[in-house]
């Protein structure tokens, strides 16, 4: 099973916290789409033995694409790749792009899953983050989406400076009232070189508070558990049968092809990433050259990645798998290192699976680092 990720590097305006690759000028949109189509052709050999199970339009803001552009990309995939019979095809979309008509038309395309960047239903929060939509558009887009799609995901952000627990609970309840089957929820993170970082440094915006984030995360877990969501990855919650198949592939070490500027690919032992620059990307693809860098993973790199991603998921880290794929020394090391965290009730063993406890979940990077091996 494999996935194709397509990066659409355009947004209407820049959210203050965002460090993804995108441009707010849509001038080169046609050229990028043209290059994406061409890159798909160029790279078909990389997937000659793979069956494509998911296609994911991420960004940026893929809902800025015209129907024609979406179709031409999907058709190219079908033409040059072996696609499974019922693939998951996701479009990331922002509420301000999702009029009723647009949603209706999208539902007639090959897209069968919408992931909507709601983030909050409160104007204060949306303004503070410089989102392009307002609260009314947020609600309207979900209502319409639920009417035409059965697989809809909503993104929510917690730990927003100044946002009380009460406001956060309201956001969760509002989301649940639409009956969406999937929710992705992230702590607001201050990335270097973002506007948010600058505002915080200048004192214009209050800094994020880890304690607030941690409490709001716990609130989220409690509410979603009651609503029958399964917490299958640190930031992802789905009803039975509605886990994101595309994203699960990342955490389970499966291969994926990343198409478009800044997109990352993985083939089981190598990671590569395209250049983060639209013009260079366009020109290079025009000349049939893939503007990308490659890194080969060592056994230890792969072990570390498995630990890091595994601890975030409901599937955990399988000790048997570690032994089979990486060897006995890796396994023994893992068990030895894990003991301390088991004693501190941050990890637990369920059969052969190492999982984070409720308390350990929000500390899982630090725990993973401790279980890492270092390349010499």
């Amino acid at each position, binding site marked *: 099973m494999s996935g194709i*990720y397509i990066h659409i590097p355009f947004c209407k305006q820049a959210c203050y916290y965002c460090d993804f690759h995108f441009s707010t000028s849509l001038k080169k949109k046609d050229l990028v789409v043209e290059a994406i189509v061409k890159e798909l052709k160029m790279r078909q050999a990389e997937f000659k033995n793979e069956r494509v199970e998911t296609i994911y339009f991420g960004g940026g803001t893929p809902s800025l694409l015209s129907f024609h552009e979406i179709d031409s990309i999907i058709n190219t995939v079908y033409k040059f790749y072996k696609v499974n019979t019922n693939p998951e095809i996701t479009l990331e979309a922002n509420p301000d792009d999702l009029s009723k008509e647009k949603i209706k038309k999208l539902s007639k395309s090959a897209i069968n899953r919408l992931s909507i960047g709601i983030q909050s239903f409160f104007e204060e929060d949306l303004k503070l983050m410089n989102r392009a939509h307002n609260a009314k558009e947020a609600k309207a887009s979900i209502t319409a989406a639920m009417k035409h799609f059965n697989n809809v995901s909503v993104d929510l952000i917690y730990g927003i400076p100044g946002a009380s627990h009460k406001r956060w609970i309201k956001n969760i309840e509002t989301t649940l009232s639409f009956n969406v089957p999937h929710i992705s929820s*992230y*702590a607001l*993170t201050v990335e270097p070189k973002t506007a948010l970082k600058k505002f915080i440094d200048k004192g214009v915006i209050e800094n994020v508070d*880890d*304690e607030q*984030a*941690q409490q709001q*995360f716990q609130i989220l877990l409690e509410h979603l558990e009651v609503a029958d969501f399964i917490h299958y*990855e*640190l*930031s992802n919650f789905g009803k039975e049968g509605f886990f994101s198949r595309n*994203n699960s592939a*990342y*955490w389970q070490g499966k291969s*994926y092809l*990343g198409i478009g500027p*800044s*997109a*990352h*690919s*993985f083939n089981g032992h190598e*990671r590569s*990433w395209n250049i983060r620059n639209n013009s260079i990307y366009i020109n290079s693809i025009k000349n049939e050259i893939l503007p990308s860098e490659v*890194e080969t993973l060592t056994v230890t*790199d792969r072990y*570390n*990645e498995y630990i*890091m*991603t595994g601890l*975030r998921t409901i599937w955990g880290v399988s000790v048997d798998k570690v032994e089979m794929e990486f060897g006995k020394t890796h396994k023994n090391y893992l068990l030895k290192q894990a003991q301390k965290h088991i004693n*501190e009730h*941050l990890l637990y063993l369920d059969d052969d699976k190492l999982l984070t406890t409720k308390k350990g*979940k*929000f*500390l*899982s*990077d*630090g725990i*993973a*680092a*401790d279980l*890492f091996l*270092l*390349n010499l």
Partner: protein
Amino acid sequence: MKHIRNFCIIAHIDHGKSTLADRLLDATGSVTDREKQEQLLDNMDLERERGITIKSHAIQMDYEYKGEQYVLNLIDTPGHVDFSYEVSRSIAACEGALLIVDAAQSIQAQTISNLYLALENDLEIIPVLNKVDLPSANPEEVTDDIVDLLGCKPEDVIPASAKTGLGIDEILAAIIERIPPPTGNVDEPLQALIFDSVYNPFRGVETYFRVLNGSIKKNQLIKFIATGNTYNADEVGTLRLKQFPRTEIKAGDVGYLITGIKEAKEVKVGDTITDAKNPTQNAIAGFEDVKPMVFAGIYPVDTEDYEELRSSMEKLQLNDASLVFVPESSAALGFGFRCGFLGMLHMEIIQERLEREFDMTVITTVPNVSYHAYTTKNPDQAIIVNNPTDLPEPSSLNRVEEPYIKASIITKADFVGNVMSLCIDKRGQITNQTYLTPERVELNFDMPLAEIVFDFYDRLKTVSKGYASFDYSPIGMRASKLVRVDILLNAQTVDALSALIHADNAYHIGKKMCEKLKELIPRQQFDIPIQAAIGAKIISRETIKALRKDVTAKCYGGDISRKRKLLEKQKKGKKRMRQVGNVEIPQQAFMAVLKLND
């Protein structure tokens, strides 16, 4: 022997010794174009990175002068005070010295101290006025300064530039004309002085020696007098850019010896090599023992590495005879060593060399000088306190004495005020003030050694805009008001964080230590109180709040490798941490007291 000259290059730090050595190597054709690089003899990575010489370095050159062939043995020495032991040992292998003086900076503190070392050993001094190419050079005045200092004639001073090559031929001529050839008798029994050594993981211990009498031959059975051990001289040779095996090294010459010794302890710098069957009756006096100025504990980060640390330190000691250490133990850190250093730079270099050359990651504890404590019970019996934990309880303490030094500071007249206030701030008392020239002043102070080992140089440099040089010598012990400030983490005293501090500064420093530790100790899964205490009295307190969030929200295709690398870096950092109780303390926190002003 008539055709051998042994000389070293001595000077104040940065006056251009190593660069001048480059020019001499060029002029004598001792290096090929491919081998050439700036400060070629500074071949340790640490030396190149820091741009200073740490180790003396001996090298042999051939030179034809007036139709005759000469062998010149050169030793480049370090200029920094902390490595003066290197200079004194090099001097013992030579008959002459090039005294380099920077034409812009003139005579500085270590110019004088290194000159005296050379004179004590009756070396012929050739003064060289270096860097005359600099626009700021002041050749006439500085020549006068040198003439005053040495009592020589102005014509004896050779103007030179190690940068442009000016004066190099004159220097080579002077080496041959003025420095006496070595004396000694090839027919007497072998008598050679070990002046340096180094551990080579493949070949064992290499010793560097100067033959005074007799000769040393390949495969000769030889004996080290101090240890009494005999060995076969597997290989002898001269020190070129690479080692150059020979069948015999005769009286007057310098060379290396390999015997296959693997045990560092079997070789002592300063020992005499002789013939096993026909030994000399005269062991060479050797070197004075070094007197360490600062003491600190060195512990392996991983307790299991204690024995390996010991053997690494023994090997390092071969190449750094000024390092001394004895085993000690700490409740917090387990087994380690109390080490003596010649100064803070020396301590830093030892820590770095252990890491780079022996792959030993270590924790160094708060350094202190050596105090004398007297108890009320035994008021005449000094207890030597090299470790804060050795200070008797305040209740049983009669008095404490601390080491004082006489500081000599040479600076420009403009900065006298600044330098004085710094020294007075450091509990110094001025004893003398001499105008060397209308612009240059020598100031003398009596000061506690403890005040100059920590952050004195840096501040001196700042207040004098770089125009001050500094040298010191011990003048004995004087009464002191000393207390031990203890640090408690999670209500437990961590002995390795205790520091001996003058009572007047204790509150202030205790507070700063707590603040610094709060900054350096990473947050953990629980709150960690930090307290500073004198005896049972808490003088300061901070808390490290528990870590609430340690995970990034997003982890998709593009994030994975970046994130893995980030966590790997974090893990590397953790390897340098030591668990004390249930608190993880990073390596640098143990030295926090030194960085209080950053």
